[in-house]
């Protein structure tokens, strides 16, 4: 008799915590889920707290102490079996407490780690919106010494390259390539303003640019300005540039820069970037003429 009453007490003592435990599991799941919420690549990791919080339950089931199982199909229907299964001793309780404490600790650690990682990642993550934030905005001086802005080229497509004339060792053939692209475009080239913006305004004065652009397409316009004006233009186009020391060359420095061609549409909005190394001139010309052709069809 004492045995039975003990068992009943034990059973009721377990069935009440089992509901609490279910709540706790839900809580951990919520923490894990919360950490993973709105964070695509960690959703997979978000499953970890869930698994961890369910681990003690699995362990207890293995030990024959599964409270949630017994909660649903437990003592009422099968009192005898349950009595056999649930001989709760202080050792069992200690194991249970240890497992739960471990699970809670791990779940909290994972959640904290997850939140910290999200904060760190936030700054480094590039967010792409519908349109590239590259704008044709500049106030510069052309190779004739005239002040120009993007407004002077409004209504035409713009093909823009950033570079400099004092190549110290190997000269990029980018402007010759651009020249080739324009030639391949034939009459469509008239729809395009080819612009060469120097990233080295110190040396590339309008006079220097005038001599330089004469080597390339007759429509090519060389643009320079003050350091500040050039900085604003490179910022608007998101062009990287960095002054580096150079052993060769007359002035002991060169300007490293990204060698992209920017294609901007008639409204000065961003259309595409090209790199010389990525396609032959014919292909780049085709891609541009397709865009001009599409524009004709839609208007």
């Amino acid at each position, binding site marked *: 008799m004492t045995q039975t009453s003990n068992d009943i007490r034990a059973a009721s003592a377990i069935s009440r915590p089992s509901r609490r435990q279910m709540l706790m599991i839900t809580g951990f799941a919520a923490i894990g889920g919360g950490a993973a919420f709105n964070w695509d690549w960690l959703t997979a990791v978000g499953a970890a707290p869930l698994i961890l919080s369910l681990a003690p339950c699995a362990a207890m089931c293995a030990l024959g102490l599964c409270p949630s199982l017994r909660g649903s199909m437990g003592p009422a229907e099968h009192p005898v079996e349950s009595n056999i299964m649930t001989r709760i001793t202080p050792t069992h309780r200690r194991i249970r407490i240890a497992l739960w404490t471990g699970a809670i600790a791990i779940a909290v650690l994972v959640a904290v780690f997850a939140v910290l990682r999200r904060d760190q990642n936030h700054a480094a993550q590039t967010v792409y919106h519908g349109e590239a934030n590259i704008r044709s905005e500049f106030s510069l001086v052309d190779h004739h010494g005239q002040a120009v802005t993007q407004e002077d080229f409004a209504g035409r497509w713009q093909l823009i390259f950033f570079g400099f004339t004092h190549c*110290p060792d*190997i*000269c990029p*053939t980018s402007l*010759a390539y651009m*020249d*080739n692209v324009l030639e391949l475009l034939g009459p469509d080239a008239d729809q395009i303003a080819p612009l060469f913006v120097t990233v080295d305004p110190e040396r590339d004065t309008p006079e220097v640019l005038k001599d330089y652009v004469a*080597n*390339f397409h007759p429509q090519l316009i060389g643009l320079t300005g003050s350091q500040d004006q050039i900085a604003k233009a490179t910022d608007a186009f998101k062009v990287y540039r960095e002054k580096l020391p150079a052993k060769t*060359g007359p002035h002991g420095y060169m300007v490293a820069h990204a060698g992209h061609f920017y294609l901007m549409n008639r409204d000065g909005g961003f259309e595409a970037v090209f790199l010389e190394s990525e396609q032959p001139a014919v292909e780049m010309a085709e891609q541009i003429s397709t865009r001009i052709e599409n524009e004709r069809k839609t208007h």
Partner: protein
Amino acid sequence: MKRRGFLAGALALGASPAAAREVMAEHKVPLPMLSPPITDGRGRNLTLAAFRGRTVLLNIWATWCPPCRAEMPTLDRLQAKLGGPEFHVVALSIDRGGLETVRAFYADIGIKHLDLYVSEQLRAMTALGVAGLPTTLLVSAQGREVARKLGPAEWDSPSAISQIKRIILEGRSQK
């Protein structure tokens, strides 16, 4: 014995000054070439086939390329030293300005031995795979690309001359 040979080789390589090493990186197997249409100083149209039988140093350049301008006198001296029935320097300009531009530049810096050669930049860049200037190719007497260098060099330096002489000899034995 093998190890000794290896060590001796490594030592020789390490001890030799950079200038004594070969100027151009040679291909394992000489490569077939395409030729753009070339115009010479007398306005004649030709292709690289016109130089078959002679080893050719083909330098692709333009007046707007400062390092190309800087190395031009060394090419002139190389032509003076080695130019003849077995070897020829072809300094091929891709200037839009064509012969006139190049002639003016030659006069300006006092070029005496180089002949004038120009080519349309689009066709030259495409046919010869040029992605930067100067680009210099060493072409065998059989018309194949033996070596290629991107960037300037001292073409009349002892190391350049010995490498070119070796290629001339190799071309002679293959005739």
